[in-house]
């Protein structure tokens, strides 16, 4: 059999001295020659002729019944490639994305998000805030601004700049009182759009104000962007803590580090008699943080000032800088940025494709 192989190669050499160099593989079995030739994709016509010529010539070798020539082209093979996360153009220059979440609604996520974002900015970082609560966007109200976002030259949506923070919310795009009556897929595409089609630019931090629950938005965010960590907001109340626990579990499942828990509405100090009341229970979130082995980032008391500033569209951290609440937010911002710095060394695999 090897004789046929040698003869075949000699024959190819006779036909054209370049042909033997094209041989990728030659196998002789059961009086058949299987020959595969390297080809240039751009010269398909030429190689088709060569193929016929070779088949005819080799077929006349003694002891050969048939010849099968196949043309292979390497540039033709499907090129495998590592696709970078679809984490999409919009947030590609954002260094850290942190989400503010809770299982339950109404615990003060949005108020916490905006104050935290401004506090992080006061520490000297550039900050953006994405309101991912598509059904109940609160950020426009909290910053007292409802202007429509403009488009950049590249056709992207420019975030609203307010209090030195880049902001985006579905609330900037629809009238305040009109509800978003959307099914899941619409919500997902809205979130994707706020990630991809908004020109966030270079930011040190993007704070994401999550809607309550563990659904479409949370999952989309977890899959589309590499998040540095999540901050959980809860009241000390058992009812809220049950849901906060679910939130923590969700982030653990998708491998997003929990930066810690903030206890909101922790105590109420009566402005008249200065008596402290634990309206929603005492230190529930702190205990929960211990149980879940996550950090306790701080407690924010229930204060009339905080509520008033929020409703007036001027976050407390800017309007009452000396208040206990403002100081607490700054402390929390310090812990959060420090933790993100520690966590960002957390590994991400290298994808290598040969």
């Amino acid at each position, binding site marked *: 059999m090897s004789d046929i192989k040698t003869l075949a190669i000699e024959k190819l050499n006779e036909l054209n001295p370049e042909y033997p160099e094209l041989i990728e593989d030659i196998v002789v079995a059961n009086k058949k020659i299987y020959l595969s030739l390297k080809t240039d994709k751009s010269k398909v016509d030429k190689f088709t002729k060569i193929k016929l010529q070779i088949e005819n010539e080799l077929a006349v070798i003694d002891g050969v019944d048939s010849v099968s020539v196949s043309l292979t082209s390497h540039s033709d093979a*499907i090129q*495998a*490639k*590592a*696709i*970078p*996360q*679809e984490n999409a153009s919009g947030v590609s220059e954002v260094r850290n994305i942190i989400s503010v979440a809770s299982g339950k609604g109404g615990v003060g996520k949005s108020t916490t998000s905006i104050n935290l974002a401004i506090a992080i900015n006061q520490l000297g970082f550039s900050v953006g805030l994405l309101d991912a609560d598509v059904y109940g966007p609160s950020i426009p109200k909290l910053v007292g601004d409802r202007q429509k976002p403009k488009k950049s030259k590249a056709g992207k949506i420019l975030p609203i700049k307010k209090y030195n923070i880049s902001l985006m919310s579905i609330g900037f795009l629809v009238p305040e009182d009109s509800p978003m009556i959307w099914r899941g897929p619409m919500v997902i595409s809205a979130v994707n759009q706020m990630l991809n089609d908004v020109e966030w630019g270079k930011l040190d931090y993007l704070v994401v104000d999550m809607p309550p629950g563990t659904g479409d938005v949370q999952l989309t965010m*977890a*899959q*589309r*962007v*590499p*998040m540095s960590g999540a901050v959980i907001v809860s009241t000390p109340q058992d009812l809220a803590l049950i849901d906060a626990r679910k939130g923590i579990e969700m982030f653990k*499942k*998708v*491998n*997003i580090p929990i930066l810690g828990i903030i206890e909101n509405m922790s105590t109420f100090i009566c402005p008249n008699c200065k008596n402290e009341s634990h309206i929603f229970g005492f230190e529930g979130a702190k205990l929960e943080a211990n149980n879940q082995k996550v950090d306790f980032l701080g407690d924010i008391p229930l204060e009339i000032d905080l509520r008033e500033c929020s409703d007036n569209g001027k976050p407390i951290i800017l309007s009452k800088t000396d208040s206990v609440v403002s100081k607490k937010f700054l402390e929390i911002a310090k812990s959060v940025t420090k933790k993100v710095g520690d966590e960002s060394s*957390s*590994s*991400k*695999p*290298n*994808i*290598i*494709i*040969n």
Partner: protein
Amino acid sequence: MIPENIILSENKKELTLEYGATKSVMSAEFLRVNSPSAEVKGHSPAQKKTVSGKRAVSINSIELVGNYAIKLIFDDGHATGIYTWQYLKELFNGKDKIWKEYITELRKKGLNRD
């Protein structure tokens, strides 16, 4: 739990995961027939499908999914499997057992790898 390197072989048929000093090599076929996708696993163990005839399957591309998983895109068009770090580790640890079970399953159902 997170592999340091994920390496796709030149012929696109083998995926190597490197965890520090330990290495795990899995074939594209093995990964394909054990895809965590609902298309394969269904929504309960009773709905699990036995995928057959994937001996020649190869991996076209790999996508990172957030911080927790990779998505493998196979050349047969299957692209819905999200392989979490944990699931990959489970596959690696139970490789031989899972593979034997698969072969048994194929025989029982009169299916084959080609």
